[in-house]
């Protein structure tokens, strides 16, 4: 059936789950296993991309370039990928990452703001890198709007564009409709990707639905390690795609061993869907907010779910981690008076 390329983001999106504490040695160990298992690309770096180390998103003890270089030193077959969010990282960061060994970049914006990435996408092409556009919080844009934004990234030079379900809020119909509309709108030579989160336990299901509508590039993380309740679990996804007859070229035992033997020992906590994770998917909140919301709720004596629901109600987008403190301060002051009830906040 369809040939599917697997991009593993354990060492980038997965870093949210370890508060961006990966060391270059850990990066090398995981990348070695992923490379042997045959994934198409291995994404490395701070969870919020190049330049993401900050008080806002969490400070990483090791800089992105050291991690990229550590991966570059061990990878023999896979492409080495990085993430860049314009507004956080810059074109200079991209040049430096390329010099350190990055061959592929995903340039990410909120799903309605693709035009802020035009220069970065164009630069990546000039540098000879492979470039994918990454439209985050895709549940917040209707299919036609998402497709229109995808076309902006395509015109700027993106070779593939992603439907990125950062909040793990899409159900299968939502994923299907978005991908199908993007497929109709974009040039046949432009590939489509899906990046799913597992907050509603639908990451693999959404990935399969997206493939049915034309996606050929899929994201996963070993053990599902990642923001919120985690990402699409690479080793599960590879098994399912194999059963469905799609060819990924990934060795199923290889990714399982990498997950069980190399990644599990690195986890700070088991990667499960707890109540907070479900709430993120349910309220449509950026998955990276989870640990920040937990900390803020503790500091101000609140239920973190109240904080998340209020953030969802305010249509806060990815990158606005500072709004977590803002909302927590306000909830602590007002005791939640005037805030929406959970039921009232659901669209």
């Amino acid at each position, binding site marked *: 059936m369809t040939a599917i390329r697997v991009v593993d983001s354990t060492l980038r999106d997965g870093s949210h789950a370890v508060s961006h504490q990966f060391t270059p040695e850990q990066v090398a160990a995981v990348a070695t296993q992923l490379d042997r298992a045959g994934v198409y690309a291995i994404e490395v770096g701070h969870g919020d991309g190049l330049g993401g180390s900050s008080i806002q998103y969490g400070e990483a003890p090791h800089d992105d370039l050291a991690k990229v270089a550590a991966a570059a030193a061990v990878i023999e077959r896979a492409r080495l990928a990085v993430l860049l969010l314009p*507004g956080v990282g810059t074109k200079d960061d991209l040049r430096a990452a390329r010099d350190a060994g990055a061959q592929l970049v995903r340039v990410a914006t*909120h799903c309605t*703001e693709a035009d802020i990435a035009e220069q970065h996408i164009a630069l990546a092409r000039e540098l000879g890198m492979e470039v994918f556009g990454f439209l985050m919080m895709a549940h917040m844009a209707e299919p036609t709007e998402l497709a229109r934004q995808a076309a902006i990234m395509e015109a700027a030079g993106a070779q593939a564009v992603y439907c990125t379900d950062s909040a793990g809020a899409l159900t299968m119909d939502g994923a299907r409709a978005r991908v199908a509309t993007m497929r109709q709108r974009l040039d046949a030579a432009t590939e489509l990707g899906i990046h799913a989160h597992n907050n509603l336990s639908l990451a693999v299901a959404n990935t399969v639905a997206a493939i049915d509508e034309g996606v050929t590039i899929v994201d996963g993380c070993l053990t599902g390690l990642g923001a919120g309740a985690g990402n699409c679990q690479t080793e599960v996804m590879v098994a399912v795609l194999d059963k469905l007859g799609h060819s990924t070229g990934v060795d199923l035992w290889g990714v399982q061993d990498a997950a069980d033997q190399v990644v599990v020992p690195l986890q700070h906590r088991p990667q499960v869907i707890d109540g907070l994770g479900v709430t993120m998917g349910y309220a449509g909140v950026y998955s990276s907010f989870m640990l920040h919301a937990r900390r803020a709720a503790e500091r101000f004596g609140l239920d973190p779910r109240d904080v998340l629901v209020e953030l969802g109600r305010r249509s806060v987008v990815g990158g606005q981690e500072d709004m977590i403190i803002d909302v927590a*301060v306000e909830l602590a002051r007002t005791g939640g008076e005037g805030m929406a009830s959970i039921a009232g906040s659901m669209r």
Partner: protein
Amino acid sequence: MTVRVAIVGTGNIGTDLLAKVHRNPVLELVGVAGIDPDSDGIRRARDLGYHATSDGLDGLLREFGDIAAVFDATSARAHRAHGEALVAAGVRSIDLTPAALGPAVVPSVNLGDHADAVDVSLITCGGQATIPIVAAVARETPVEYAEIVATIASLSAGPGTRQNIDEFTRATARGIERVGGAARGKAIIVLNPAEPPILMRNTVYVRAPGLDAGKVSESIAAMVADVQCYVPGYRLRSAPLIDGDQVTVLIEVEGAGDHLPPYAGNLDIMTSAAIRVAEGMDVPTSNDTAEVAR
């Protein structure tokens, strides 16, 4: 005594400046220059009875003499070219692009320091909103690191801002260091498309080992009052949050609603700062006198 000024650029920033200069008793608007004869900004200037040219800065300098200062509301790239032409013509620049050719000015922090500069940079909207807070901490305790996050409504970010995202983060980070006084600065910008549009929000994180919480809070309160003198909609969302060596300050900026609605505080704080700089020009020695002139 009035200051003769002109505006180059007829996008959101130029058009907002037009409204503010129009009602300012100290500033006399000589003309407006754009590059698109059909632009809204050119039409608005003419509607208000001002000379307007679509031949850009060259047209402006050719048609009008005796201009004390030009507000440059174009783009970083365009200002690099304009800067030279203005120096040659003996006209001072008040630069609202992130080009950063001249010394950076945040009126509440260092207005008096560069009263004679031929080119004054207003840094960025995020810089105007956050650098005063960094400076308020730095005047009490050395600041090791300051980081700001500016979140603006998508609708308030015109093509200039969208094509200048890297310039924004770089110029703001530099301003945090040079004007704010932080040893190291970092800036992040986020666009939020929520409907109705959100007010401009800024978060400032400052790390200052050994800070005195009482003194720092007082210094920040005094600084906020100073900024409110020229941006009335500038306010804190809560008292500064102080946790050990780290201060977190949450700010929102409501605009005056001149060109764009009040959510566009980012536009307002930039143009209000620029007006403040221009007002000081007929009395180049101190900002005290400028306050009298207001």
